[in-house]
């Protein structure tokens, strides 16, 4: 039993093998337990990577850390642990959607997610769904979508785990998770505390990252009740408190502090039988930030948004055809130092259709239309299909129209030389993708090509009075390919798993043909794990190609290779408690690198951790 667990720990890496939807038939209850069934049925033809616990434990603390080494997303991080935004397939920070249990949680104020304010450790799984997904997941699902999912484990008894960790720069982590799964009730509670002085050395200088300390608390709590043979009630909650000093740059000191709070609550009532699944969801999302430009002083600016949402989702299975209609309502209120009370009411109708013609061939057609109180939203669709050409070889194709809607800042900001613009339209984006995968017993290969064309990109520019305003000023295109290779082998007491991906990304302004800011053309990542009995050694390598830092491509940041290495040792069980001792060395070659210009990343650093499971 124990051996199997260790092996799974190692195998975690291989869950990255890219699957094109999931073909396994799933019994209805299993489906209803999922927080997001759209992924199961209506994402066929999309490239999907799933990350489970074991990888998360190895990959540091934040969602940035997890995805940087396990996906081909480029993160622009304003110094380690600071604001972190994604560039997925060459798109910008507002063109990646982050979805929590089926609900889009990108900030209503900025339209993006700070990936350092999400702690993946408490979720059952994190899914990276590449490519357009606005029909399924709404605004911002252009480059791709990150799904954070909580599952409910009925009948699995009481399980606990505790992780404690300490390392360089006075970095400490504490994570505790407890779950109880009975026949009719499932409960999970998780808490993380993450803190660091984060005063790493700026390599090549005699300076340190002087104002970069952070202290985060994250709570997750979920309850599931099986009310009857046809009904289930689920409650989800997530709270995040962040407190960060914001690092300066190589040329400017900083004395800033930023505190943010997020509450996310969702209640779902599911009713189901052999053919239909109906879900009624009501939810509340709250986001608030306070920015202290000088942390010695009391003054701060703030912004907050409350989102109340309700949706009704009805899925009907008619032999080989799945039909799904969803109607969403939400009401959003935002206010802040630079936003007077602003409201938005929003309604969306979604229709999704999947026809599994045979076990080997299926296709889907999906539509969405939103009616929004403060702008016109485009009609969205997606078409997708997957075909198992031969036993191990699958072809998939998808086409979609996606969007990114104007944020509250884009529309309603006032003050400090800047002004929102009520004339701003949503960005609309078309894309086409083709993927292939070849899977053997020991290996998996995948290759994807895609093209994206986005019109009316929203950017802030000064108007002729010198006031900065949001405007639809740019049309851009992306194309690229991604090639993945996974391999594993076992002999005697040895186990090896190796997982690599290369991506080529062209992301250009249609007028100038210049590569867009902060999009690496080449990115290679390679993770390897080796297990011998109770010892696991793993290695993470990332090659990040050069990125441009000016739109005329006159200035660039050098490419770099960063590597991390770690060791886990599974100690003998004591009183039914599993202990895993871990050591991780980040940036083992002490590489001086930046992913945002003038904001150095950490030097070589160490992290010790003890993981206990009981």
């Amino acid at each position, binding site marked *: 039993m124990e051996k199997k667990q260790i092996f799974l720990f190692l195998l975690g890496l291989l869950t990255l093998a890219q699957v094109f939807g999931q073909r396994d038939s799933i019994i209805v209850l299993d489906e209803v337990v999922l927080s997001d069934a759209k992924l199961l049925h209506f994402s066929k033809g999309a490239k999907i990577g799933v990350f489970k616990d074991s990888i998360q434990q190895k990959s540091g603390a934040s969602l940035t850390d997890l995805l940087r080494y396990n996906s081909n997303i480029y993160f622009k991080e*304003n110094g380690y642990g600071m604001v972190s935004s994604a560039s997925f397939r060459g798109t910008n920070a507002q063109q990646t959607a982050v979805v929590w249990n089926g609900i889009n949680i990108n900030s209503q104020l900025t339209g993006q997610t700070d990936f350092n304010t999400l702690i993946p450790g408490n979720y059952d799984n994190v899914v990276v769904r590449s490519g357009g997904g606005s029909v399924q997941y709404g605004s911002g699902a252009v480059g791709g979508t990150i799904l954070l999912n909580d599952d409910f484990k009925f009948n699995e008894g009481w399980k606990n785990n505790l992780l404690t960790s300490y390392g360089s720069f006075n970095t400490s982590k504490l994570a505790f998770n407890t779950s109880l799964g009975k026949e009719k009730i499932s409960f999970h509670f998780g808490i993380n505390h993450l803190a660091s002085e984060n005063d790493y050395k700026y390599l090549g200088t005699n300076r340190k990252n002087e104002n970069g300390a952070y202290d985060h608390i994250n709570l997750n709590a979920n309850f599931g009740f099986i009310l009857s043979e046809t009904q289930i009630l689920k409650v989800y909650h997530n709270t995040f408190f962040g407190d960060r000093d914001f690092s300066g740059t190589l*040329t400017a000191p900083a004395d800033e502090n930023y505190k943010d709070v997020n509450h996310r609550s969702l209640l779902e009532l599911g009713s189901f039988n052999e053919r239909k699944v109906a879900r009624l969801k009501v939810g509340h999302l709250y986001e608030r930030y306070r920015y202290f430009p000088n942390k010695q002083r009391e*003054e701060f600016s703030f912004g907050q948004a409350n989102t109340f949402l309700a949706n009704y989702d009805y899925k009907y299975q008619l032999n080989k055809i799945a039909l799904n209609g969803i109607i969403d309502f939400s009401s959003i209120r935002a206010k802040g130092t630079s936003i007077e009370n602003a409201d938005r009411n929003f309604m969306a109708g979604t229709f999704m259709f999947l026809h599994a013609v045979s076990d080997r061939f299926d296709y889907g057609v999906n539509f969405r239309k939103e009616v929004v109180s403060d702008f016109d939203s485009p009609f969205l669709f997606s078409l997708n299909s997957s075909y198992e050409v031969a036993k191990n070889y699958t072809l998939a194709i998808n086409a979609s129209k996606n969007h990114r809607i104007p944020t509250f800042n884009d529309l309603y900001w006032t003050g400090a030389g800047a002004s929102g613009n009520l004339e701003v339209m949503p960005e609309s984006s078309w894309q086409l993708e083709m993927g292939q995968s070849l899977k053997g017993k020991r290996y998996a290969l995948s290759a994807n090509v895609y093209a994206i064309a986005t019109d009316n990109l929203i950017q802030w520019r000064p108007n002729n*009075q010198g006031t900065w305003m949001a405007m639809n000023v740019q049309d851009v295109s992306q194309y690229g390919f991604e090639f993945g290779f996974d391999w594993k082998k076992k002999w005697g007491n040895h186990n090896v798993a190796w997982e690599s991906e290369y991506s080529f990304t062209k992301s250009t302004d249609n007028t100038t043909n210049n590569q867009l800011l902060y999009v690496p053309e080449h990115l290679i990542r390679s993770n390897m794990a080796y297990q011998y009995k109770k010892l696991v050694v793993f290695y993470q390598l990332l090659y990040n190609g050069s990125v441009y830092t000016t739109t005329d491509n006159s200035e660039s940041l050098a490419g770099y290779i960063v590597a991390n290495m770690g060791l886990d040792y599974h100690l003998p069980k004591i009183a039914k408690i599993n202990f895993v001792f871990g050591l991780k060395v980040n940036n083992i070659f002490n590489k001086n690198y930046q992913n945002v210009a003038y904001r150095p990343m950490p030097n070589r650093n160490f992290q010790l951790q003890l993981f206990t499971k009981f």
Partner: protein
Amino acid sequence: MKIRNVFLSLLIIGLSWSCTNDDDEVQEPLGDYENGILVSNEGPFSNGSGTVSFISDDLSLVENSIFKKTNDEDLGNIVQSIGFTDDEAFIIANVSNKINVVNRYTFEKIASITEGLNNPRYFIAVNGKGYVTNWGDTADDSDDFVAIINLQNYTVEGTISVVLGPEAILAKDNTVYVAHQGAWGQNNKVSVINTTSNEVVKTLTVGDVPNSMQLDGSGNLWVLASGKPSYTDDETAGVLSRINTATNVVDSNFQFETTQHPGGLNLDGGDLYYKLGDKVYEQNLSATSLSLDVALEGVSFYTMVVKEGRLYGTDAGDYASNGTLTVYDLNTKLAIETLTLGVIPGGIYFN
């Protein structure tokens, strides 16, 4: 780059010869960057460094990042402006709270001032001292000041407290005038500072958001205020004010329309120039009302300077790439030359 410098030196010497061939003495060049135009480029807003570009007088030669090339270091974040003494240039990095002092002709660094500044904006040398406007902490409306710089040891030796948002600074004899644009907010004052006592002797009220000033040959100080922008929900008109520097009294105000927000006041010969919308207007010093004569149209400059019948205007483009400087002949209204400089070219100076 060295070759280019040598070439430039030769060129300058050549020019000096040709200009001075009636004289027996040949003037030694003071440095590579004599006889040309210096442009300060703010640089990217949130991270990075501004730069300084050099353009030869005949516009044939452009050299970017001359401070970095000469000294192998960065100037700092948001290079707001450059101020000058006879031999030195004071390059102000606003966000870095730093002034790099260089020889204005060789650009070799002499010192850097890092203590005693807080959001520094503009520099002027008067009466043996340097004066630098500072916003102070932007959260505090009452800590704004003018720093007094000791020009021998390059330190801040004192401060003069002033009202909110000191910006442009200018001197008439030993009196300093500071326009209070209002930092992140708005203000409508001009401070008059006596540099012997280092005290504010008078605070004058002008239009809202005074952004630029010029001094004419008859001792009048012209102050151009843009008015409050529409997003403040209290939009006000731009105002051109004339201050008599003998009495320090505002003796005329020329009002624009409420939605007109002019900026970039310049003086060349007997005419004032300013930008408004997509036009540059000119106005004779003796005019008794706004004449609204168009000097140039279909243009939008980030900053502009008019000198000897030529207009030098910059375009910051998308603010995330190298900007340009275009030189116009105001007689023909035609562009003579367009040159590529650094990111957000915001200050133009004749060396």
